[in-house]
């Protein structure tokens, strides 16, 4: 890789633009407001939410599923595509993995925000029962978080060392941070060989984990006998949705980084075209699952299942349901097949639209089922409207994700340098021989 490209990739680390400062300040403000509102919820309990009986779960749980889903982009792009040897992923890998690393904490956090007695959280470790799907979640999500961080950090290591060696003019504390975090990396060929070996092995593990994690997330619902939830398709459908929304997020991230850091030559139209093709496939797979799920329910005509079915198709949740369908399928597919071919702007629009649609999809999975419990009488028919408290806390979670991401790009190279360096490639080539 050319020297000037490396300088380009390291340049955001040495200066802060005014706009960036304002952006960070704004995000910090939203996060602080969210924290204060959480304090309010802590003081007043979950009564400040719109949840009730029988709608015992609301948008906190929707956020949990959504953030874990969003996280899947990173693992998919970096681990699964690494396994199949798709080299085009290289410049995007870290940008995608960073979504994983910064999104999972908000997924796990959403569950904690939703707990009635957060002060007793440690009962899960002391009295945990593995018969409960919630324990499966605790184990798989924390394992996912820890291994994503390890995978991310390891692949970042040579670049931190590069920052340590090249960025001499940065503030003392920043240089000190690079020195500590680089763990004495020496740029030795043998180190690269070992690193590549570890990353390849971890990629196998991560690819399995990514499948398990989102399936397990769906099982919190799927393992109950409630209408609309108790179906084996829920696991794979959640997984596809996760990769779908994650890949949409990757497109948006790529375009933003490209614009802000002037990476036009690194993230080229070709990369967007690969993502476009991948997303066309995912849109169609999503439709396939959608049809498979609802046709099975509709054809069977079981009374309780149909109550939930009509809640979605024509009932209380008809508007979000059809908006979801339009945003997850019709609009993105149209964009990918027409304007998206040549325009990054349209691709970004599609990426955002898919994510709004996927958030709605999670909402459509969680809430309508709870409004129509099996043992139905007027007393148990449910309704749910999220309150402003839930809205603010949700906004703060999204702001928190953006904040961590933005700060990361300020201090670390978001495009991998070492993986694309010719020297390193030569070492690794030698190793293969």
């Amino acid at each position, binding site marked *: 890789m050319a020297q000037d490209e490396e300088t380009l990739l390291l340049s955001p680390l040495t200066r802060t633009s005014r706009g960036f400062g304002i952006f960070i300040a704004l995000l910090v403000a939203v996060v602080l407001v969210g924290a204060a509102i959480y304090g309010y919820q802590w003081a007043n*309990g*979950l*009564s400040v939410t*719109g*949840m*009730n*009986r*029988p*709608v*015992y*779960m609301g948008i906190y749980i929707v956020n949990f599923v959504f953030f874990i889903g969003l996280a899947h982009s990173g693992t998919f792009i970096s681990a699964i595509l690494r396994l199949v040897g798709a080299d085009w992923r290289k410049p995007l890998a870290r940008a995608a993995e960073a979504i994983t690393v910064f999104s999972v904490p908000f997924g796990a956090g959403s*569950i904690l925000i*939703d*707990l*009635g*007695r*957060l002060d*007793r*959280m440690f*009962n*899960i470790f002391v*009295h*945990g*029962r593995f*018969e*409960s*799907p*919630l*324990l499966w979640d*605790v184990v798989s999500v924390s394992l996912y978080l820890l291994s994503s961080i390890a995978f991310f950090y390891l692949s970042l290591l040579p670049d931190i060392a590069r920052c340590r060696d090249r960025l001499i003019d940065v503030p003392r504390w920043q240089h000190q941070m690079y020195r500590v975090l680089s763990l004495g990396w020496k740029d030795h060929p043998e180190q690269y060989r070992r690193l590549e070996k570890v990353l390849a092995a971890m990629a196998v593990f991560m690819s399995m984990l990514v499948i398990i994690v989102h399936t397990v997330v769906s099982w*919190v*619902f799927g*393992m*109950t*006998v*409630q209408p609309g939830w108790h179906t084996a398709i829920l696991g794979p459908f959640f997984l596809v949705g996760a990769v779908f929304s994650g890949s949409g997020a990757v497109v948006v991230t790529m375009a933003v980084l490209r614009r802000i850091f002037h990476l036009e030559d690194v993230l080229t139209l070709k990369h967007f075209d690969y993502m476009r093709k991948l997303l066309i496939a995912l849109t169609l797979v999503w439709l396939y699952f959608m049809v498979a799920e609802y046709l099975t329910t509709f054809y069977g005509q079981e009374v309780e299942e149909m109550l939930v079915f009509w809640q979605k198709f024509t009932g209380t949740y008809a508007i979000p349901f059809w908006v979801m369908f339009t945003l997850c399928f019709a609009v993105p597919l149209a964009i990918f097949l027409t304007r998206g071919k040549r325009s990054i702007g349209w691709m970004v629009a599609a990426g955002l639209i898919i994510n709004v649609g996927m958030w709605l999809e999670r909402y459509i999975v969680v809430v309508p089922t*709870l409004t129509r*419990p*099996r*043992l139905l*009488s*007027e*007393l*148990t028919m*449910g*309704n749910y409207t999220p309150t402003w408290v839930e809205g603010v806390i949700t906004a703060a979670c999204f702001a928190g994700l953006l904040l961590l991401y933005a700060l990361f790009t300020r201090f670390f190279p978001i495009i991998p340098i070492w993986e694309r360096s010719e020297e390193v490639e030569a070492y690794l080539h030698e190793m293969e021989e």
Partner: protein
Amino acid sequence: MPKWGMVIDLDKCTGCQACSMACRVENNVSFAGPEQAEIGRAMFWQEVLDTEMHGHYPFLETQFVPRPCMHCEHPPCVKVCPVGATFQTEDGLVAMDYELCIGCRMCTIACPYAVRYFNWLAPRFPTPLEQALNPDVPVRPRGVVEKCTFCIHRLRAAQDRAEKEGRTLRDAEMVNLPACNQVCPAAARYFGDLEDPESTVSRLARSPRAFALLEELGTEPKVHYLTGE
């Protein structure tokens, strides 16, 4: 080991809701208040479900279904609890440990009968009812789940008494043991040991008039209903 169960005769039930009121007072069930009740936060360990009235005067028809906890033999709520805060006692009751519950509400979404209630608010009792709390039943704090216990405190007290007197429990003293049964003006409710083939509840549960709610789910409810001649 006995298996405690209940039989409710729907043909006798008048829908008066005395059972619900007695249960509330006996078990210190919090008063949500009209505004909270409006948004679905009322708590009824024993709730009387009603179906919409249908037909035309004078041939109107409606049905009341008093619904305590079913104390399932295979309880879906116990399976999903991550900390064992809800569990099955040796004699088949589905009980709660309010000190362990973390308020995750997995059990509330797993129960197909919607019998489990979450304390959205700190418990409240309008004056002077806060001075009339039952000392035998703990008041539940905000953030935990609660539900009908089949008046386990009355049951254990009766068992202790019988043990002291060196005898076994008599069916006659069990039939109206829970508060809901005790007050039922129509005498539509029965309680007792389902394992004892001679008990009132066993005999009634074997009747061709007997059925259980959502039997097809395989939860084996220990509340049986009677209807039809």
